[in-house]
Structures are given as C-alpha cells and as structure tokens.
C-alpha cells in the first residue's frame, strides 16, 4: 500500500496534470484523475526513485523568480546577438566547484543553466563537484561564477539540504 503514496508531491502533480489535460473538473474526471495519479506514482515507486526532500519551499519560490527574470533577460540578450551582424563576442568554458550534492538539486541547477539561453551545463564530476559550463557571451568569468554560486547554488542548498 505504501507504494501508492510514496511520492505525494508527484501524485499531486500528476493529478493536476490530469485535470489540465482533460480540461474538466467534473467529479468523474476528478476521481479518474486521483486514480491515474495513484497508478502513476505507483509506477514511479517500482523504479525505486529517490524522493527529493525539500526543506524550504520559500527558497525554491525565490529561485523561480530569479530564474524567470534571468530567462527573460538572457532571451533578449542572446536574441540580440543572434540577430546583430557583429561578431564581437567571446564565448568560453568556465570551471567551477559545486558544493551541491543532492541529485535532484543538481538536476534543477542543470536544467536552469541549460534552459536559460547563454549558459550550458557541459560536464560534471560527482567525485569532486567540478562543473564545466559553457557561456555564450563571457564578459567576466568571476561574475558568472558568482552568479551561479550565489544566486542558484546557495538557494538550492538552502532549499534541499538541511
């Protein structure tokens, strides 16, 4: 029985997804949605996936806000560069050392960095936490490292790790 309720967050998410997909809030669909969400999370539990333990939801909200702003900003920036005829731009790889170890948090970080135009997650080593990213328009390496470590990694550390 445990396995049906092992991932409450995921179950809730799937339930919402179901309602969005069916675009209906009829009692029948709600019941069906609950059933599907339970089945889906049971499916997940057969994978024995580890469950993320979020300590601090506010930090995550804060992170989301940062990311939203950064996404918009970097979209504009990259679009400009893409459309401008000048080639005056310096792209480079940056190495940095992460303290973050929680896989889910690392994944979030990877997704944020990669989904945001301008930065890309390239290589990470669990052994020493060394991360290699590629930056599209590098003005100052330190600024970037600081941005990632202070804005993203710190929040993620606070959100996920005790």
């Amino acid at each position, binding site marked *: 029985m445990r396995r049906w309720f092992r*991932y409450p967050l*995921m179950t809730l*998410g*799937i339930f919402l*997804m*179901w309602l969005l*997909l*069916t675009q209906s809030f*009829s*009692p*029948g669909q709600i*019941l*069906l949605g609950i059933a*599907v*969400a339970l*089945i*889906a*999370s049971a*499916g*997940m539990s*057969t*994978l*024995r*996936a580890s469950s993320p333990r979020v300590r601090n939801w506010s930090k995550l909200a804060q992170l989301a806000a940062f990311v939203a702003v950064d996404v918009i900003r970097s979209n504009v920036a990259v679009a400009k560069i893409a459309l401008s005829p000048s080639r005056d731009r310096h792209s480079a790889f940056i190495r940095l050392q992460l303290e973050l170890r929680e*896989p*889910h948090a*690392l*994944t979030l970080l*990877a*997704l944020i960095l990669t989904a945001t135009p301008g930065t890309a*997650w390239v*290589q*990470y*080593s*669990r*052994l020493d936490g060394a991360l290699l990213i590629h930056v599209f328009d590098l003005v100052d390496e330190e600024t970037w490292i600081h941005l990632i470590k202070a804005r993203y990694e710190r929040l993620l550390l606070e959100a996920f790790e005790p």
Partner: protein
Amino acid sequence: MVTREGILWLALVLPFFGSLGASFLPVKARNSAAMLAGLIALAALALIVSLYPAVADGAVVKSRVEWLPSLGLNLLLRLDGMSWLFALMILGIGLLVVLYARYYMSPNDPVPRFFSFLLAFMGSMLGLVVSGNLVQLAFFWELTSLFSFLLIGYWHHNESARSSARMALIVTAAGGLCLLLGILLIGKIVGSYDLDIVLAAAEGIKTSRYYVPALILILLGAFTKSAQFPFHFWLPHAMAAPTPVSAYLHSATMVKAGIFVLIRFWPVLAGTELWYLIVGTVGLITFVIGAWAAVFQQDLKSLLAYSTISHLGIITLLLGLGTPLGLVAAVFHTVNHATFKASLFMAAGIIDHETGTRDLRRLSGLFRYMPYTGTLAMVAAAAMAGVPLLNGFLSKEMFLAEALEFRDGSLLDTLLPFVATAALALSVLYSLRFIHQAFFGAPATDLPKQPHEAPFWMRLPIEVLVLICLVVGVVPAYTIGPVLDAAVRAVLHENTPYYSLATWHGFTRPLLLSLLALAGGTVAYLLLRTKLNSAGGAPVIRYFKGRRMFETVLASVIGASRRLEEMVGTRRLQSQLRILVAIAAFAALLPFIPAGYAIGSERITPVQPGFAAIWVVGALCAIGSAWQAKYHRLAALILMAGAGLVCCLSFVWLSAPDLALTQLLVETVTTVLLLLGLRWMPKREPQQWRRGRAPRSVLFRRGTDLALAIAAGAGMALLSFAMMTFPIGHTISRYLVEHAYAEAGGRNVVNVILVDFRAFDTFGEITVLAIVGLTVYALLRRFRPARESVRTPEQQRIQNAFDDSRSERDRGDTLTDYLLVPRVVMEWLFPAFVAFSLYLLIRGHDLPGGGFAAGITMAIALVLQYMAAGTRSVEERLRVKPLSWMGAGLLLTLFTGLGATLFDSPFLTTWFRYADVPLIGKVPLASALLFDLGVFLLVIGATALVLIAIAHQSIRTPLRRRDMELISRSEGEV
C-alpha cells in the same frame, strides 16, 4: 454369376493387388513372392483366356466406371480381339518370366520388391491394352514408363543401371507426355476420348487442321516407347536390367506398347501421305540400323537388344505402309517376335548365369555343357533369322510380300525390297553368330564359372516359347490363325483383307528374297566371323552413340539452363528491387497510355506559408537522407527523423491529429530502434576508386537508379495530385461518420473505425506486432555478432580506460556523471508518461489517441528508463515480461471480441452504454475501451520486447571460451 466385365476388371486389378502384397513381404521371402507373382499372373491369364469366346467373333467386352465425367475421363475397359492378343502375350510371357526369374535371381536379392514391380508393370501393360478411353491409355502408358524405370534400375547399386533407367524413363515419359497431348488434340477434334467414338471419326480426324500436330505427337509417343530411330538408343542400355526384365520388357511388353498404340490409332491416323512418309521411313531406318548394329555387338544381350530394335523397325515399317495386309503382317510379327525374343533373352540369361559372362568373344563351345539350352536357343535364333518351319519365317514372308508390292514409285517404295533383303541378311548373320559363337567351337577355357546345364524350371519357360515358335511355324492356320484373325478384325473390321497363313505358298518372289537373305547372311558370317570378333563397334553407326548423345544433349540443356538462369534471373536484391520498382511503375502507367493524364475539377486549396515551408524542410531532409545513407548513417538517420517530423506536422495540418500523434510516437521509437541497431553495424569508409572517380559501370547504374527513383516519385506525385483534384463521389465514410456517435458511441471517428467498424483490422494489426515481436525474440536468441562488433564500442573503451587511469575514479564513473541529470529527469517524467498514456488510452474513443498511441507512449517511457539507468539496473527494479504482456493483450482483445458471441452477436460486436453512477453522473462504458486496453498491453509488450531484445545483446556473455578469447584479444588491441 461373374460377368465378362467383372472378369476383365478382376484381371486388371489382380496384378496391382499382387504388387501391393509382394511389397509387404519380407526381404528374404523369395519363394512366396515368386509364388504370389506366378499365381497372380496365372490367374489373370486364365481370366483373360476365359474371355476368348467373347472376342473371338469380333465382339467387344466393355465396362465403364464413372471417374471424371465432367472432363470425359471415365474408366473404360474395352477388350477386343487385338487387346486380347496383347493381353495374352503380356500375361503369358509374364507368367513364364516370373517362373524364370524365380531361378534366375540370386537368393540374396530382395526379390519381393522385384516381383512387386514386375506385377505392377504387368498390370500397367494390361491396363494400357484394355483401355477404352484414350486418356486412360495415356495414364497406363506413363505407368509402364514408371515401372519399367524401377525394373531397369532394380540393381541400382550399379551405376549403369541407374543411368540407363533414368534415360529410359526420360525418353519414354517425354514420349508419353507427347502422346497425352496428341490424345487431347484428338479429343478436341472428336469431342470425346472414348475409343469407339474416336475410331468412328476417322475421316473427321484426317481432315482436321489438328491432324498433323496430333499425328506427330502420337508418333513421338509411340516411337520413343518402341525404340524407333532416333529414339532407339535407350533400349540397348536398358540391358543393365536383370535378364528376366529384359526378356519381358523387350519382347512382349514395354516396347510393344508403342506398336500397340500405332495399331490402335491405325484406323484413324494411317493411310495418309504423311503417315506413310514418317512411319514408313522411320521403320525402315530403324530396321536397318538395328540389324547393322546387332551384327557388331559382342555382348549377347546387346546383340538381342539391337535385333529387337531392328524387328520393331520391321513392325513399324509394316504399319507405316498403311495397307491392311501390312497391318496383318505387323500384328503377326509382333506375336512371333515376342515369343522368339523372350526365349532368346532367357537363353542369354542362362548363359550369363552359368558362365559368368555374356561376351561373345569369350564364349565358345557351350553346347557340350548345356545341350538343352543350346538346342532351344538354336531353334529360337532360327526363328529370328526366319528359317522356314518356324514362326519368324511366316511373318517375314508376309513382310517381304508387302515390301515388293508396288505403291507409289517413290524412293522409299523402290528401295524397300532391296534394303529389306539386305537387312534380313544381316539378321541371319547375327542370329548365326549368336549361336555359333556361343555354342560351337572349342570349349572356352577362361570362363569365370564352370558352365552347367540350367535347372529344369529355368529351362521350362524357354521350352514353352520355343514350342510355340515351332508349332506356329508348322501349323499356323490351326494355332495362331483364329487368334490373329480376331485381332486383325477388331481393327480392320470389314476392311480385313484375305491372307493365307501357310508354310508353303510355292516359289514366290518373297521366298526367293528370303532364301537370298538366308544365303547371304550365312556366307557373310563365314567370311567375316573373325573380323566381327575384333570389331570395336558397328561401323558407321558406332559414331551415332545414342547414349552419349542423349547425355550430351541433356548436359548441354542443363548447362544452357544454368547459363540462362543466371541471365534471366538474379540473386541480387538490388536487381530484384530494381525490377520490382520498374514493373510496378510500368503497371501503374499502363492505363494512362491510352487514356492520357487528366485532373479533376475540384478547387485547389490555397497554399499556406507554413505548410510550404515544412515541405521544403521535408524535401531537404529526405534528399539529404538519401544522399548520406551510405557513409554517414547517423546523419541519414537524423535526416530521416526530420522527414518523419515533417510528415507528422503535415498530418496535423491536414486534419489528421490521430495520425500525427501516432506517427510522432512511432518515429521516436524507430529512431531509438535504428540507433540500437547501428551499434552492430560495421564502420564505413568512403570507397576509394582507383582513378579517383567511380568507374563508368557504377555511374551508369547510379544513373539508372536515379532515373527510376525520379520516375517513381513523379508517378506517385502525379497519381496523388490527380486524385486530390477529383470530387469525392460515393464513399462509405459518410455512413461511418454518421453512425460513429449514434451507434458506436465515439466522437473520434478514426478511433471508432479502429475499435469498432474495422476493429478486425486492428485485431490483425496487433497480431502482426505480436508476431514480429516473437520473431525478433527468436532470431536474437541466436544472435551472433560480427567479430569486430563483439567488443564494447570504442567510446566506452576509451572512457573506461580514462577511468582506470585515474586512481580516484572507478570504472564507469564517466557514465554515471554523464547520466546524472538525465536519470533524475527521466525518473520525474516516468509518472507523467504513465498518466499521459492512460489519458491517450481513455480518451481515444472521443478525441485523438487510443490503445496504440498509449502503448507506444508507455514503451517510450520504459526505454527512457533503460537509456538513463542501463539494462541491468532497470530489470532489477521492474518486472519486464513483454511476452506475457503480449499474450495478455492478445487474450484481452480476443475475449472482448468473443464476449459478443455470448449475446448471439458476431465477433467484435461492441457494446456501449452510459451508466449512472451516484455522485459522478453518467459514465460511458464501452467494450471498445476493453479492446483498446488489450491493444495497449500488446503494444507495450511488443515494442518493449523488440527494443529490449536488441539492447540485451550488449550485455550477453559469450558461451564458449573461443569467443571470450576473441573478445579479450580485440580488447587488447586498443
């Protein structure tokens, strides 16, 4: 009271039952087999003899059994005087041969088989002569070919027996097929295969435009069987058979079948210029060649064989003359030849048996060891030579009389008496040589065996036959007379001529020629006897080596076939596909050649920019894929995926969301599938042509292929464009759309078609998927990777080596780091996939989706797990049992469909109701959903099975040490 018809039937089936019985006897049951065969032959003979009164006065015994009436083929037994005479020979000589064979065959031989074949052959011959239906005659004709093949090849451990048997079969069976065709033509002319009706239609046949082909085909049949020139060559080689077989086949039966057919068709085919020309000439040539060749033979049986050919030539010649008297003489000589030739073969067999050799040069002075046999052989040989007071003399006289008769003054007519006399002299010569060489002179000293007189029971058959020769020769009118008369009358009826069967007709021209021949033959023997012994073969004729020619012809036919097969056929897939495409394109084009290409009147939809753009992309991708597929497989694969995506987008655009959905999902799985396969493919390097560019032949081939591709593409484009410009006329879709919701309870008409209107198609389609899953599974169980693919891919080796080289890293760390993020994301996505696939499954009936799309979605979710976590890791956690899923899915659809039969409705009848559930309201309940659930299960199972089965190859461990070594060696090479 047994009727005559009953007796006839009994006589016919007895040999076959006997044959069957003999075949079940134990291998060593020599006496019982012989006894059985003898009794059968005797009984059948008695039955036939008992029918003599019925046919003696020209009456006919007929019996008819419906067999295949719609094609005019009935079993029709018909016994008249002529058939009776032949039946008598077949059974009488057959009985004697059985007796002879009992003592001739070695105790070690598995004789039951021999007697079984012999009886079957006897039955077939009997069937042939009593056939009242021409097709039935051809039927038994081929049976005689078959059983003679088995008899000639009886000593099949012997190479010459095998090849001779095969030659005889091929020649005579081919003739038989010609005969059948000729008979069918006769049937077309007359409208019946009933012999009586055919015989009554003589005039119609001779004037028909099919007379010539029919005549030639029938003659081909008769000539091959009766060993007429140029088909005579098989007969001497058939001497590889045991002597009883030769005695039977080459005296009274096999070779006489052709004669019998000539006689049977004589009334309807003979009498024309063409008949005379062909049959007469062939007979004459055969007669002369046979006699000439017989003179130079050193083997007793070969001598007899060629003499048989010669005598058959006489009979054919007589029939070819087309006169009633010629026919009488032919029939008479047939009987006479049967008797003396059978006895001579048996005598030769005794000599062979007793001395261990049949070589005339080694034989000498046997008379003192075997006086009885010697005497009998002498009498028989004299009959063969045509010595007066023996039966051979009488028919020879008749022959010469016919030869002297003036007909048309043609070359054949003029030469005939001289040639005949000369050839008869030759027959005197070889008869004399046979006797003198074997029985007289100094006793031979170097014989393989010490000769003795043959046992009584072995001599008895010869004695009987020689007695017949003698009695017939002395008092023909009282012995053979009535029988011959009945036979001849059965053919000629009112045209039967006057003829006299007397020993003495006075000093006539025929007698003169006869004596001339006797004298000439004797003198020639005296002059040539020593020279003949050193002859290596018949002069002139020796260069006509029938067998070698046959084999050369056969070999060259086969050789030519092999060359031709390579020319008109191909084993190359490319050529086959080229032809296939070209032919299909041509077939599609064909109706347009007369009609021209036209388009319809429907208004064209205006182009939308997005649609045009995606098709520019699609075309680029497709062409790029075709361009890159040889050396950049991955690029081609990516390009193909691009083309596939364009198809999906088009489907969305063109109001086919279900198609887009399904194609997208399938597209993804296909990409993964092909990538899984690429791992096992060899590396490709661009081909280096010697002069830096492809040779002209290659360029030509590519040019043709390009033209073909463009033609096919243009064809498809033109066809589809034309169709899209025609307004829709009648279509069953209208009904489907109208009834989808009202009667099947679904709003998505496509899905309703799939799970209801045409659920049977879907049912079949998932079966295909299941079968393919099974096949893949079965094939990959025995998968044997290529040498260079056995080891792990280069990338992994390098990455592992890197991990190994760093002390802080463990092997596999690179991979773990690489998949860290994807693995987590895919775990997150897994429940979303599950939910989405359930969503597709449930809503499919109303909106795009359905069991198939849902199943593929689940399979993709599964494969993503495999990709991110690896096979072992996933299978430790998930119970992946694709075969069971497939079975369950199939059973679920099947039972859903069968559910309807409980309510007396046909398979797959759907059931649909709204149920009122408290709180929730109306809930649609449809059996179609259950059906779709089955589809869903099966699709997951089959897709997963295919993907996983390929993926599993990477983690299997080779069974044998050799393979292990192979792998470790190749690992070490890096």
